[in-house]
């Protein structure tokens, strides 16, 4: 017999109240998790950022000294600059590379699924000891890259010291991030498949070449995904920790010390939670500003098909 789901006639006020708010009961576990693990630590870190909070000696001073320190301490300002450099190198290159590979893998070529899987694998490896070992093998003085450089130049050039030269070390960790382009590529691939084929047919009839089609049809049609990838990649780049932590440890000479590494060092090596919190908030504000800029600018370059 089919169950009768119609509201019962003559329900008590308590039952009606329950009917109205029972959804909230179901949300309670999530709300508790959010409050305990997100909202409270968020508020606490803001408070701590205005103190000299130390894990073991507590708080003895209140004020903006951490923020003043952050912009006057050369170690921190250098880390901020390095973080900007890292982000401005990795985000565009990763997006361009992911789009390029997605565009190729959108063609009907043999073993396309195997290629898609292969290109996605680096993204799921993340930062691990295995990656550290691999990257060192590739970039050490007599590693794969320098061996190739030597071969190509017939022994005339040895290649730089990637891991020990401060001017090259940042590129080593940038390349790790760019190499892990799989998730952005998958999104681009999905977007490319959503571009109507009739647009290309019309363009072909009108005599447009492949490059013209790419820049006048493909790119405008996938701008919402480019925008999404841009915002998420900016957020992730500013939070990058694993690469420099496992490969260079922030060295040589602090050339790969990103702000997230400093947050970790202040918090868990020096136990200075006040300064660590201030740096985390500075990082948060920077990401906020860049995200706002991206959102504001999207009116000028992002095309949504439901907009007139």
């Amino acid at each position: 017999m089919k169950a009768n789901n119609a509201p019962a006639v003559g329900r008590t006020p308590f039952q009606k109240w329950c009917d109205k708010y029972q959804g909230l009961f179901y949300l309670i576990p999530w709300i508790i998790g959010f409050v305990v693990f997100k909202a409270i630590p968020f508020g606490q870190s803001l408070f701590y950022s205005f103190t000299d909070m130390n894990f073991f000696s507590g708080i003895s001073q209140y004020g903006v000294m951490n923020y003043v320190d952050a912009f006057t301490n050369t170690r921190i300002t250098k880390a901020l600059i390095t973080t900007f450099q890292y982000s401005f190198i990795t985000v565009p290159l990763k997006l361009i590379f992911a789009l390029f590979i997605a565009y190729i893998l959108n063609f009907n070529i043999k073993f396309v699924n195997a290629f898609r899987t292969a290109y996605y694998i680096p993204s799921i490896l993340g930062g691990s000891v295995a990656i550290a070992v691999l990257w060192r093998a590739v970039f050490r003085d007599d590693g794969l890259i320098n061996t190739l450089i030597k071969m190509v130049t017939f022994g005339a050039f040895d290649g730089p010291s990637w891991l020990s030269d401060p001017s090259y070390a940042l590129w080593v960790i940038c390349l790790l991030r760019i190499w892990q382009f799989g998730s952005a590529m998958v999104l681009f691939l999905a977007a490319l498949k959503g571009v109507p084929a009739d647009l290309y047919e019309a363009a072909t009839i009108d005599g447009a070449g492949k490059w013209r089609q790419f820049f006048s049809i493909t790119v405008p049609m996938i701008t919402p995904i480019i925008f999404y990838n841009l915002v998420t990649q900016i957020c992730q780049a500013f939070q990058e920790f694993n690469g420099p932590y496992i490969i260079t440890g922030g060295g040589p000479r602090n050339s790969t010390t990103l702000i997230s590494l400093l947050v970790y060092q202040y918090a868990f090596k020096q136990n200075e939670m006040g300064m660590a919190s201030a740096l985390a908030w500075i990082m948060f504000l920077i990401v906020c500003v860049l995200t706002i800029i991206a959102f504001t600018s999207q009116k000028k370059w992002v095309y949504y098909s439901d907009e007139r």
Partner: protein
Amino acid sequence: MSNAISRRDFLKVTGAVGAAGLLAACGGNGSSTAASTATSVAAPAEGDVSLTISWWGGDTRHTAYQEAITAFSEEHTNITVSPTFAAWSGWEDTMSTKFAGGVAEDVCQVNWNWLYNYSSNGQTFIDLNTVSDYIDLTQWDEGPLNACVVAGMQQAVPVSMTGRIFFWNMTTFNKAGITEVPKTLDDLYAAGETFQTKLGEDYYPLHLGGYDRMILTVFYLESIYGKDWADPSTSTLNYTADEIAEGLDFIKSLVDKHVIMPLPTYYGNNGSTAANQSNEWITGKLAGIFEWDSAASKYRDALDTDNRDGFTVGEEIQFGDYKGGFTKVSMGLAITKTCQHPAEAAMLINFLLNEEAGASIMGSECGIPASKSGLAAAEAAGAVDTLVEEANSKVLAFCSFQLDPLFEHNNLKADGTGIYQEVFDTIDYDGASGADVVDILLDGMESVGYTINA
């Protein structure tokens, strides 16, 4: 109206109960907080007791601890011990966070300077004198035992004493035509030249990382000037800027004379990898280290089969009129204040370090036992590594200076970002002299609490 419970009613009730349960779980345990502040110690509890213990180390140490814990549980059937262990890398960060959060294990293997860094007022570890009925404190000599007294409390018992000594890979030395271990500074310089000319540019008789270089600098200065690096009780630096610059120039001379590998060369091949995991050490291109005596087996076991047999304990080198070098408590065992069963925790420590059944299993896995009965038991069981024992006896016979607790402060010794690293990176990258970088060192030391009169 039906009295049957509808699915909707059931969900309402389970939702409310679930939420209440979560709230209760988040509320914390009031009784444990109260217990954590207790200082008096009750007698062993009746009934079943659960203890936790943590340590860092390598595989062989993990095995020794686990076997000893099993033996302890067989002897004390009402006590269950749950271990937490890992390698050293990142361990201090984990433990300091646990100490701060009051969630560290009941019994913790601790570094000596942790007592000062994390329990300077006795806020983290209990005074072991309060459990002296269960742990025999008379098994330790006064010196090592007193080294673990902080804030007037016996916060740990020393597991072993340690100091730095040279270890050599004589397989490589023999390849270079050198048959004797270096015993003087001139021997070191000569070895550097011989390695360079006979074996090639990528062979070095010794490797020193940033922190190792600082320890050897202090060793050298103590040999020359015959005084502690700093006053152990007040952390007042005993050396002038000029004297320290002389010590730093000594390290620079080792680089210049091809005795030690320049740091940029090391980073270029290994990034931030530890020396014992580097290809150069494993294959014998780096043929010596200046390490803690207890680290002998770690470095020996890392060598490939062609080189392992040549691993040899060297001699301490006297660089001046005095015998330099310091000894310190390598590690201790402590009971945290959050421990609910300190009496049983003390029994566990006593079993591991003093009693025949435990100490014979632990052997020299944590260094040569500082406990007299523990050492006797380990030796009787043949569980003392002869290499470690030889190194330890040489260190204890030679090194006589004291270490101050700030010397190992994380801001100073941290790999990659510490002041010591910065000083020696600057020397190697920029070709700076000791005088050029001494202020970096002094400023860094002052920032962590040293009193500088230089």
